[in-house]
């Protein structure tokens, strides 16, 4: 596979459930070597996006290409390179952990049994226990091991850390970083936990209203979206009419404005128009997410 190609390309993808559009002419392109976090509200369609990407669901319009192949009928060799962890682990509860691992491994040509063993030992999953008796966290970890052990080029995870305690989450993130360290592997994971995303992801995709409202480097997002605290000697108008404003709160001669793109021209304009001093506040990802979704 050409290194420069995108591992995932979704063009004008629309997916409707009944008459309700979950994905609406969505465009997304993920290139090799990135760790991309998919962020969105509950019910925004993150799981649907992942399922369309894997060929588990078929969009009504648009094309989905994963690892260079159309997603709907992936070939066996493409599936060898993909690892997927769905949201709820459905493990064969009557089988032992080690048997489940071996059973899954028997399908793959490139299966790193040693890696599986190491992960199981590190994460303290008892290999001889039956999967039905594992706790939710252990089951989730096992599902992750099953997806990692064949060293996929593209790893897709749907809320992988939802049921893990903070220590387990950190370990998992470390493993993800190690996997993506070489630069030839890509990871796409959807999550609600913005703090994890901030740590490991270098790209963020925000899914809003069925479209990707932002896709880019996390650092860029944080650089661009800022909250401004304005203090003036005069009273401010009822509303600011400035480009790129996400949210504003005005009280007399003080105002809090969240803006999408911060430029020196904007700051100049504010200062000259209203004789205001501007204090720039940095927003972390959680706050950015809340500001972006404020009008809903």
């Amino acid at each position, binding site marked *: 596979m050409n290194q420069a190609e995108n591992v995932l390309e979704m063009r004008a993808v629309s997916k409707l459930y009944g008459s309700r559009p979950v994905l609406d002419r969505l465009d997304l392109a993920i290139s090799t070597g990135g760790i991309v976090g998919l962020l969105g509200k509950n019910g925004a369609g993150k799981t649907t996006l992942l399922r369309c990407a894997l060929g588990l669901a078929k969009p009504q319009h648009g094309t989905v290409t994963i690892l260079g192949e159309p997603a709907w009928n992936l070939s066996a060799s493409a599936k060898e390179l993909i690892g997927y962890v769905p949201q709820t682990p459905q493990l064969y509860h009557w089988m032992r952990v080690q048997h489940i691992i071996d059973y899954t491994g028997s399908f793959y040509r490139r299966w790193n049994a040693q890696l599986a063993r190491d992960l199981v030992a590190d994460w303290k999953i008892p290999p001889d226990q039956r999967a039905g008796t594992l706790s939710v966290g252990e089951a989730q970890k096992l599902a992750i091991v099953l997806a990692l052990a064949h060293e996929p080029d593209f790893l897709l995870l749907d809320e992988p850390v939802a049921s893990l305690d903070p220590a387990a989450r950190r370990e998992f993130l470390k493993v993800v970083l190690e996997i993506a360290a070489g630069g030839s592997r890509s990871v796409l994971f959807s999550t609600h936990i913005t703090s994890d995303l*901030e*740590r490991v992801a*270098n790209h963020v995709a925000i899914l809003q209203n069925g479209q990707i409202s932002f896709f880019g480097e996390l*650092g860029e997002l944080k650089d661009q979206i800022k909250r401004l605290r304005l203090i003036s000697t005069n009273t401010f108008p009822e509303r600011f009419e400035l480009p790129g404003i996400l949210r504003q709160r005005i009280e007399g001669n003080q105002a809090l404005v969240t803006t999408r793109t911060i430029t020196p021209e904007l700051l100049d304009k504010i200062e000259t128009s209203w004789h205001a001093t501007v*204090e720039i506040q940095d*927003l*972390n990802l959680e706050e950015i997410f809340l500001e972006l979704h404020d009008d809903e």
Partner: protein
Amino acid sequence: MAADFLFQVFPNSGLPIYRQLLDQVRRHVVSGRVSEGDFLPSVRQVALELEVNPMTVSKAYSLLERDGVVEHVRGQGMRIAPRPKPSENGSLRERQERLLPLVEQVAAEAYQLHLSSAQVKVLIDRVFKELDGK
């Protein structure tokens, strides 16, 4: 030889991680805790220790290189570059323009705290004295 760097980043702050690293390296250089010729730890090392994405670290490093704070030595990594002479780094006016936003922020804070410009100058003189002492 890599200097004893103890980076600390807060991934959950509003400041991007790469910018935090940038600022920390710059502060270390300015305060004299590292001198020219010292090597920064490798990207991989920093990423492993801080448990962050290595691409973030390498972005910080390449920005440092672009600004001339560090230079890349083949086979050995990033080395702190010698501090440029004043004439090499742009005219006085340009350099003042670069500092202007920070000065404005200081002025705004001072205004809030009811400090006059003379009182602020006292502070500035004191900080410069500490720097020159190093």
